[in-house]
């Protein structure tokens, strides 16, 4: 394992820890006072700090340290986690996430913000926030560890946490001897820590003697070179006190067993029963120690055995005759002992692994591997379709056994496909969790009070969709808080709760995931939107628009109703970007708004981007696939239902309402003249504005599941075409981008050079 891999694992773990941290803090915010929750939060910060320390990420370490110190006050009940305290902590969690990201991807963080938070956290840790019963504790704590003032150069680490520190135990000035038992676990090494470095730091604290316990060391073949076998008994004479000792191990605290006991005020107490090697400060010392003894071959061998028994080995400086005798006996015992040691060690290791895996049996798999598998399954599906097609074509007698076999194969492939897709399915929870942070930040900036309610966080959806969901969702949340919700004063004036609510819901509906974002704000000011649209030349001044169409104007590029442009939103890049991202995911977005009651944005997204149920149609001898989700109904137009207006526009009357007729072949430039609607089929599709359009195609071939192949990746982007697929007969068919076609029918023609590409 090289360092980068370890670092990558660390960052992955950080993400998990940050999620843990945030959900823990939110639980506390909701009044959960379970000590386990506090512990979980503390552990999360601590682990991040530990890992960051191992990689020398100093900014991260120093911030995490201050954060941890304050959390520790909560853990030890010295600080009541009330709303105000948790507000600071939630913001700190955000900064911690920023610092982690900065450490991973480079880039800067808002230093002023983190400095400010460090100050606030320190204030909390020092009990500066008036709490019932806190003053006397604060008094006891504050003088013991005065936090260094934060200067403008960056953050300063503060003194180590107070938890191990007893007020009754004054900082030792006289050197005391401590006996330390340090047994690292394999995780310590797995995280890139090295016991040697810890011991080196420890040796700098004072006079140290050490005994390495190698009893657990198995034979070479049986050992795992990356597991921990050594443990140490250390006698340390230092004037720096126990906390200094513990602080050496603080990054490794969770990955080792550590026992520190004060032996006596004066030195040399412990050394007697456990002979130890003094650790010299001076390099030259070893020249004298390096022995040139062991004249005979036998003696040499016994020296080797001595190595295994450290208690005897410790006395090695003077290898007396009795020693040699004793060691010879040890040597005879050795093989037996070895076997025993090896078996117990491996048993212990197995038990530890079992304990670790009992929590949640999951594996991390490289996303590339999953994608490759999905790709292969896609090929399998295509191949299966080709096979059945050729069987049907060549075998008109329809041998039932072949057909049955094919059907089974079809079912199996479908099942395989579903299972493979399920591997990529992930709950939307992480994205939703990120949103709670966005809400907090925007609420802070705008001075509004907002509560985010999330529902259906465990709804699962394809990983790609999740990854691409975060950005549009962020935009929308910002908009909802900045534009949607009123200020507390206005809310009170309108008879509402001063605290606004933003509700984020995810659910499955008919094979798609539906995400709703609802706010209980003022709703869309249609007059203002309309006026703005007229000002921006988006619509004609006398245009007659339905409420729904006005609402949808906010998705136009360059549209913003905010009176002044704020930091948060209002630059007019928001909602059209949102719409494009959602469309790029094969989704739709709708808006419902009630004046005075708020707005609801409804996004409907495919569960996966890899397969699609489509209707295969023919247009001007080209085979196209129309996503089934877009189609409302299909109908055979009658001549009497077709009405022309203007130069080339046509309408079709369906159940007493008119619907524009869109000739797909014309829009994609498949043919030069308009087709006769009566000879074709009309597909009634739901368009982005909520209105319906009738798409004219020549014929419907059938309905089938197709595997999506990206056109951008394999060819180039073609307007009006979303992607491509391979049909059962091996031909490539293009998948129609329904919304683009509808938009084009409104007069925003597809770019000509692109259209040529589409026909070519």
């Amino acid at each position, binding site marked *: 394992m090289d360092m980068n891999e370890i670092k990558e694992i660390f960052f992955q773990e950080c993400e998990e820890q940050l999620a843990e941290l945030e959900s823990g803090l939110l639980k506390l915010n909701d009044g959960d006072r379970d000590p386990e929750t506090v512990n979980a939060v503390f552990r999360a910060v601590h682990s991040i700090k530990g890992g960051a320390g191992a990689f020398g990420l100093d900014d991260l370490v120093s911030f995490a340290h201050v954060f941890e110190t304050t959390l520790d006050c909560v853990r030890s009940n010295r600080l009541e986690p009330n709303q105000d305290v948790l507000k600071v902590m939630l913001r700190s969690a955000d900064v911690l996430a920023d610092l982690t990201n900065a450490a991973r991807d480079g880039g800067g963080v808002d230093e002023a913000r983190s400095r400010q938070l460090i100050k606030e956290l320190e204030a909390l840790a020092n009990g500066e926030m008036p709490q019932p019963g806190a003053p006397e504790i604060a008094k006891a704590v504050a003088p013991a560890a005065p936090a260094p003032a934060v200067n403008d150069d960056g953050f300063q680490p503060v003194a180590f946490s107070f938890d191990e520190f007893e007020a009754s135990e004054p900082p030792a000035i006289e050197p005391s001897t401590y006996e330390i038992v340090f047994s690292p676990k394999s995780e310590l090494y797995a995280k890139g820590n090295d016991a040697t470095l810890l011991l080196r730091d420890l040796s700098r604290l004072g006079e140290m003697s050490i005994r390495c316990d190698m009893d657990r060391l198995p034979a070479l073949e049986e050992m795992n070179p990356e597991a921990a076998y*050594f443990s140490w008994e250390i006698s340390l004479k230092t004037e720096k006190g126990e906390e200094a000792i513990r602080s050496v191990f603080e990054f490794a605290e969770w990955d080792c067993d550590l026992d520190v006991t004060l032996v006596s005020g004066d030195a040399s107490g412990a050394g007697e029963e456990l002979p130890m090697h003094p650790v010299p400060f001076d390099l030259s010392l070893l020249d004298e120690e390096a022995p040139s003894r062991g004249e005979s071959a036998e003696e040499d061998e016994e020296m080797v055995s001595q190595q295994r028994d450290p208690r005897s080995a410790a006395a090695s400086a003077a290898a007396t005759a009795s020693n040699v005798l004793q060691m010879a006996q040890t040597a005879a015992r050795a093989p037996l002992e070895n076997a025993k040691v090896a078996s117990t060690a491996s048993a212990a290791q197995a038990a530890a692994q079992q304990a670790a895996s009992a929590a949640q049996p999951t594996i991390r798999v490289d996303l590339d591997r999953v994608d490759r598998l999905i790709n292969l399954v896609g090929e399998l599906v295509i191949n299966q379709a080709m096979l059945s097609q050729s069987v049907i074509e060549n075998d008109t007698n329809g041998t039932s056994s072949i057909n049955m076999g094919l059907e089974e194969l079809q079912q199996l492939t479908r099942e395989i496909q579903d299972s493979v897709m399920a591997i990529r399915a992930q709950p939307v929870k992480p994205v939703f969790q990120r949103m709670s942070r966005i809400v907090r930040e925007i609420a802070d900036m705008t001075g509004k009070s907002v509560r985010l309610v999330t529902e259906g966080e465990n709804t699962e959806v394809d990983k790609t969709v999740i990854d691409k969901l975060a950005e549009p969702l962020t935009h929308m949340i910002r908009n909802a808080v900045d534009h949607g919700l009123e200020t507390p004063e206005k809310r009170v004036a309108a008879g509402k709760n001063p605290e606004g609510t933003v509700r984020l819901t995810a659910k499955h509906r008919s094979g798609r995931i539906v995400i709703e974002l609802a706010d209980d704000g003022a709703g869309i000011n249609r007059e203002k939107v309309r006026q703005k649209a007229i000002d921006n030349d988006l619509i004609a001044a006398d245009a007659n628009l339905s409420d729904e169409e006005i609402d949808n104007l906010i998705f136009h590029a360059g549209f913003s109703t905010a009176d002044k442009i704020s930091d948060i939103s209002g630059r007019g890049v928001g909602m059209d970007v949102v719409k494009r991202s959602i469309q790029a995911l094969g989704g739709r977005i709708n808006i419902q708004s009630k004046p005075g009651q708020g707005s609801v944005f409804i996004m409907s997204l495919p569960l996966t981007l890899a397969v699609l149920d489509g209707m295969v149609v023919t247009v001007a001898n080209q085979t196209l696939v129309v996503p089934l989700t877009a189609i409302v109904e299909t109908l055979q137009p009658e001549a009497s239902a077709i009405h022309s207006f203007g130069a080339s526009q046509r309408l079709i009357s369906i159940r007493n309402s008119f619907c524009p007729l869109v000739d797909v072949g014309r829009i994609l430039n498949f043919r030069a003249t308009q087709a006769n609607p009566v000879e074709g089929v009309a597909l009634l599709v739901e368009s982005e504005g909520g209105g319906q359009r009738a798409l004219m195609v020549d014929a419907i071939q059938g309905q089938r599941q197709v595997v999506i192949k990206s056109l951008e990746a394999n060819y180039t982007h073609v307007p009006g075409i979303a992607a491509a697929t391979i049909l059962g007969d091996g031909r490539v068919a293009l998948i129609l981008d329904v919304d683009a076609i509808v938009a084009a029918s409104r007069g925003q023609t597809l770019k000509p050079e692109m259209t040529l590409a589409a026909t070519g």
Partner: protein
Amino acid sequence: MASRNSAGKPLKLAPVLDLNEATALHNKLLELKGAPIAIDASAVERMGSLCAQVLMAGAKTWEVDQLSFTFAKVSDAFVKATQLIGVDIAPLMAKEI
């Protein structure tokens, strides 16, 4: 105790014996198993606990096989590292010739 007097196959240790090196070192030692070995630690600049564990496990194994396992040459840093972690390599040092 037969092959005591042979110097053993040489194994030169890498300068940096950190966490990343432990597996490689383990494999190298396993390859040389079954014959006396003389380890050249003269280039070692840094050694972590994992590599120390591997070396000590090697010493133990060689000893069970009754073959010699010696440190022919050591660097100051190597000796210092072993002292720091309380591993006594004195008995494994090669005899002065």
